[in-house]
C-alpha cells in the first residue's frame, strides 16, 4: 500500500504526459481532448481514488502508450525476465560455489589466485561495455552467436553470459571467504582426522555450513535481475520487464510503471520468502 502511494504520487510529479504523446504542433484542443480521455484533467486525489478502486479489482489500468491493459505489458516482459534471471542465477550459483570452494581449499595456490583475480575483475566489470564488445567479437567478427534478440537458444548465450559475470564475481568472493572460515573449523579438522576425503570435506561438511551468507548474496543478486537487467535488456533487445519499466517511466505511462513495480515487488517478496525457508532447511537451528 505504501509502495503504491509513493509511486503513484512520485510518478505524477514528473509532469503531464500529454506533451509527450501528442506532437509538438498539436493544438490546444487536441491536448485538452487527450487529458479528458485519459482522466488527466481530474484532481490528483480523484485520480488516486479511481486508481485504488480499480486496484482492488486487480485492474491496473490501461497503458496510454500501448492501448492495452498495463498488466499485459508487464507480464509479457516479466516472463522473459524471469527466464533470464533463473538461467543466469542457476549458472552463477553452481559455478561460483564450485570455483569458490576449490579456491578456498588451497588458499594462496595458483587456482585460488587466478579465481580471486578473475572474481575481482568480474565484480567490477561494466556490463554495457562487455555487452558491446561481446557483440563485436562473437557476433560480428566470429559469427558464432546472434547479436541480439530472441527466437533460438543461441540468442540467450550473450545476454546470459554478460549478466553472469558480475554476480559470479561477487558470489565467488563470498563463497571463498565463507569456505575459508568453514574449512578452518574444528569439525573439519575432526573429519580430516577421521580420514574423510577432500571432496566430502569440501562439498558435504564445509559447504553446507558456509552457504548461509552465500544465499543472502544470491538473493540480493537475483532481486537485481528480477527488477530487470535494464542495460542488458536494452542492448540485446531482450523484451524484459526492466526495459518495459524504463520505457514507461520515460513515456510517463503511469499505469505500466505502477503495474511493473507491483509485479516485481511481489516477485521479490516471494523470493525472499523462499530464501527464508532455505535458511531453515540448511540450518535446523533457525525456526520461524
Amino acid at each position: 500500500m505504501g509502495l503504491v502511494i509513493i509511486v503513484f504520487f512520485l510518478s505524477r510529479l514528473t509532469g503531464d504526459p500529454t506533451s509527450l504523446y501528442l506532437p509538438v504542433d498539436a493544438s490546444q484542443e487536441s491536448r485538452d481532448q487527450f487529458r479528458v480521455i485519459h482522466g488527466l484533467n481530474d484532481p490528483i486525489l480523484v485520480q488516486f481514488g479511481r486508481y485504488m478502486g480499480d486496484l482492488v479489482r486487480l485492474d491496473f489500468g490501461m497503458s496510454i502508450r500501448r492501448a492495452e491493459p498495463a498488466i499485459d505489458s508487464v507480464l509479457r516482459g516479466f516472463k522473459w525476465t524471469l527466464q533470464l534471471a533463473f538461467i543466469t542465477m542457476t549458472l552463477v550459483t553452481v559455478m561460483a560455489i564450485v570455483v569458490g570452494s576449490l579456491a578456498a581449499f588451497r588458499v594462496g595456490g595458483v587456482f585460488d589466485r587466478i579465481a580471486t583475480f578473475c572474481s575481482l575483475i568480474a565484480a567490477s566489470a561494466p556490463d554495457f561495455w562487455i555487452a558491446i564488445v561481446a557483440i563485436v567479437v562473437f557476433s560480428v567478427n566470429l559469427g558464432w552467436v546472434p547479436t541480439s534478440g530472441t527466437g533460438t537458444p543461441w540468442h540467450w548465450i550473450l545476454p546470459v553470459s554478460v549478466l553472469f559475470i558480475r554476480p559470479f564475481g561477487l558470489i565467488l568472493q563470498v563463497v571463498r571467504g565463507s569456505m575459508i572460515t568453514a574449512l578452518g573449523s574444528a569439525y573439519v579438522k575432526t573429519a580430516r582426522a577421521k580420514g574423510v576425503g577432500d571432496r566430502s570435506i569440501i562439498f558435504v561438511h564445509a559447504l553446507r555450513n558456509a552457504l548461509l551468507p552465500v544465499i543472502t548474496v544470491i538473493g540480493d543478486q537475483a532481486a537485481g535481475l528480477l527488477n530487470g537487467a535494464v542495460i542488458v535488456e536494452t542492448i540485446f533487445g531482450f523484451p524484459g520487464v526492466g526495459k518495459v519499466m524504463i520505457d514507461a517511466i520515460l513515456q510517463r505511462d503511469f499505469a505500466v510503471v505502477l503495474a511493473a513495480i507491483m509485479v516485481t515487488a511481489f516477485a521479490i517478496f516471494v523470493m525472499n520468502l523462499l530464501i527464508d525457508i532455505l535458511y531453515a532447511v540448511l540450518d535446523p537451528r533457525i525456526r520461524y
Partner: protein
Amino acid sequence: MQKFHALIVGTIFAATACTTVLAADSTVTIVLSEELDIVDPCEASRSNVGRVVLQNISETITELNPTEGLKPRLADSWEDKGDGTWQFKLHPGVMFSDGTSLTADDVAHSLARIKSPSISCEIGAKFFGGMELTSKIIDDLTIDITADPAQPILPLLLSTVTIVPAESPMDSFVDKPIGTGPFIFDEYARGQHIKLSANPNYWGEKPAVESATYVFRSDSAVRAAMVAAGEADIAPNIALQDAVDDKMDYSYPNSETVYLRLDHSMEPLNDVRVRQALNHAIDREAFVGTILANGTLLATGMTPPSTIGYNHSLTPYTFDPEKAKALLAEAKADGVAVDTEIMLIGRTNNFGNVLETMEALLAMYQDVGLNMNLKMVEVAEWLEHYSNPFAEDRGPEIVEAQHDNANGDPVFSMFFKYASEGLQTGVRDPALDDMIASATALTGDDRKTKWEDTFKYIHEDLVADVMLFHMVGFSRVNTRLDFAPSIRTNSELQLSQIGFK
C-alpha cells in the same frame, strides 16, 4: 580429449550455422530504434510507425516524391473546385487486404477518423489542427473534400493521410492494420518483431521484396552490428560514430533543422541589434565535421533546402565576434538591457552531441559578453518553454529546437513557428502574419516566390531566430540490397522501393 575437442568444434559449427542468415533473397529484415507501441495507420506520421505502415500497409491518395513533387497514389487525379473544395478521383479496382474494395466512403471515414477526439491521432493533430474537413461522396470513386479554412495545398496535405477501411473503429486504435498497400500486416509479436508479407492482390506493381521482418534495438551500435553481421538488411537512423563503413553506410539530409528560438516579447531579445549579435557571435562552420557530421548544412530557413520556396539566395550570418560586440554596445548605449541574464534552454537527447553543441554555443555567446546560462531539460519540461502559452514569470529565453519538415512545403512549418497564433512562435509581427497567410493561399510559382520573400523577411529583416543547421542522418544498408536512403527515410521506408543486387 579428442571427444572434448570435437564437442567444442561441433558447438562452434552449430552456432555458426544457426546464426548465419539464410533468409531467402526476397526477404528483408529492418532494425528500428524503438519498439512500436501502436501500429495504427493514423499514427503513421511518427517516424518508426511510418517506416512500417506508410505506403507498405496503408497508402495515401497523393504521394510526395522528393524529386518529382506531388504524385497520384490512390487518387488518379484531383481538381480545385473553389471555395476550399477539392475533388479527387480514386483509382478503380483497388482492394483492401481484407478483400473489400476501396471507395470514396473509405476516404471520408479516414479523414473523419484522423480528427476523432476519442483517439487523438497524430496525423490529425499534426497536420490538420485548427482545420475542419468535410467530405461529400459524389460516387464510389469520386469525393469532394472541403477544408475550412481553405487549403490551397490540400492535395499535398492529403499525402499524409493513410486510408483505412470504413469499418475501422473511431474510438480505438487497431492492432492489425488493414490497407490497400503492397504488403499485408501478418504478425506483431510484442517486444520481438513485426512481420509483413506481400499482398497477392495488390493493385499496383509487384514489389521485389516478398516479406519483411522488423525488429527493435534501441542501441545504435547494436543496430549497426546487426547489419554488419548479416542479421538485418537496413538500420535506419544510426549514430554518427557507428557510420564507419563506406560500403554500407549512407548519409543524407534528414529533414531536420536545428535553430534557436528567440522570445521577442522582452528585453534584450526584442531589439534587432541584439538578435543580429546573437547570429554573428556563432561560428557555425566550426561545428561541422567536429561535433556534427560532415555534410551538415548551415541553415538560413526553417525548412530543408529541398522545400518549395526555400530561398537559396540567403547566406548564413558570418562569424564576426567583433561585430556582435559592437551591435551589443550600440544597443546598450540606447538603453537596451543587454546585461540581463538570458537562459539558453536545450533539449536533452534531441540529436547526437546536443549537449556539446549547446555548451559550445554558450561559450561563444559568453565570449562576446552576453550574460547567458545554459539549462538542459528533458522533453516535457522543454515543451513548457517551447510552446505557447509561455510562463508569465519567465525571463528572456532562447530555446534550442529541432524541426522536421519532410513534406516539401513550408506551410507545415511556418504557421506554427512564426505566425502570431502559432504554437511555438516567439514572434508577434503582423507583416509576417500577412506574408504567411498570403503564401499559404497561393499556388504554383506565386506561392514559391511568396515563400522565398517570407524566408528573406524572417532571416534578414526581422532576424527572428538564430538558424543553425540542416542535419544529416545515417542509415546502414546491407550490400545485397539495391536501396539508397533519402530524406523520406526519416519518415517512411517503402519496401516496394527496395531491390536486390
